[in-house]
């Protein structure tokens, strides 16, 4: 079958792949690059499990043909604590607050939360709720996730002022 070349940056590393035309970014990340933190829960844009950052904006990688992000900079959950680096405060807060059960939504949740906190250092509950409103969790009842994000925000403010 025909293959087309794509080049983009993922978590700071340049990647060049030959892919099937129309292949989804989510599939390329997972199957070609082995970056399986990005999950596919619906392929409809309704669950948020495939959330990644494209040039700093949250996007759903199941709705993006990989050819569309030619030259772009992609961030996935694997990029948050790369090569054994310490966990990002949002990751640490999810762990401390028991904010995951099955873990399948966690990648999208953490990226959504991290993006919020990058832009808003003092989010109130409503801002946190909005930030994760596109991410479905079936296990936790959301409350521990909201608590974890608020805790991460406080932690990040603390680090900044320290």
């Amino acid at each position: 079958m025909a293959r087309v070349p794509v080049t983009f940056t993922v978590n700071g590393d340049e990647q060049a792949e030959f892919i099937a035309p129309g292949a989804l970014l989510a599939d390329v990340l997972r199957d070609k690059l082995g970056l399986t933190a990005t999950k596919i829960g619906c392929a409809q844009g309704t669950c948020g499990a495939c959330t990644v950052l494209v040039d700093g904006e949250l996007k759903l990688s199941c709705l993006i043909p990989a050819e569309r992000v030619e030259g772009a900079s992609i961030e996935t959950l694997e990029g948050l604590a790369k090569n054994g680096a310490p966990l990002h405060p949002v990751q640490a807060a999810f762990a401390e607050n028991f904010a995951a059960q099955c873990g399948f939504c966690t990648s999208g949740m953490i990226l959504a939360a991290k993006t919020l906190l990058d832009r808003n250092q003092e989010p109130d509950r409503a801002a946190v709720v909005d930030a994760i409103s596109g991410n479905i969790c079936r296990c936790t009842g959301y409350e521990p996730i909201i608590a974890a994000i608020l805790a991460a925000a406080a932690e990040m403010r603390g680090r900044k002022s320290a």
Partner: protein
Amino acid sequence: MSKVRGRGVAAVNYPTGMNLGGDPSQALVHATTTGNFVVSLSSTDLGQGLKTVMAQICAETLGVPVETIIIDTADTDTGPHCMGTFASRGTHRVGNAIIMAATEAKKALMDVAADELEVDADDLETDGKGNIQVKGAPTRSMPVFQAALAAHFKHGKTVSGRGIFLVQRSYPEPETGHMRPATCYAHACTVAEVEVDTETGEVAVLSLKSAYEVGRALNPKMVEQQIVGGAWMGMSHALYETTEPYYPARDHGPVDFNEYLMPGPGDIPEFQAAILERPSEDGPFGAKGVGEMTANSPIPAIANAIFDAVGVRVDSLPITPEKVLRGILEKGIASSEQRK
């Protein structure tokens, strides 16, 4: 705008396990030569945290640190039989199998340690920190590591154990239905507070305050995970969810998470919970299965709270705004009228 509040209660119990099919699970425990313990299972972790709690049960039984337990599960080539993860059976059935296996392994460990320390095995205990010591004389001790090493290289003995927990199948008596459907029962009671919009039938759940009797909370934070997630699912069942919104008509079945309705992060009520423990006779350290039960009491509690608020009984799930509104209109409650 006319919003009315109401409060409702519901109390339930929940059976642990699937006695009606016969309910066995097995576990194998063996020590590595360096004093770690591998628990071999074929049980599945769905997200409820089985791997964590099974390690805690094994550590408690052996009296060793939990971090020295390795859970190796879910490969039918290496793990002994498990019926599966369902019916709130995992903690209870698999936990009991691990206790049995770990008890046998511990005995083998203690026998080796007894030889090494030149005491009677009955006089030895583990200290929970990785040592075996003489009861009442903790200075006479040896690390578990040394005992495991000696077992293999010096004594030629395995430090291992086999465990099974079988609940014999109960066959219901066809005429009377006499049977033994479960080994033990957990309990829950929820008080729900809701606010009903009398003009639109929309229901907001303000709080779910619940007590749960769980036998023994083996990992309290993980019990809390089940409680909060379960209460949310109960609320979801009560007010939102179905694959057939106009049942028994088959039309308009949802196919995605926009159409399949569940509460979002903006619908979360205040959750409060209290834990009670009445250990079950046959549970691992008294634990009962609670994963399923946590979703059950909120559903009728919310239904009863809606009645308390607006005097409308919706006896079919889910209790949609439409059903509530139809009930209100049928009762002729004027939109501006204040009942309370």
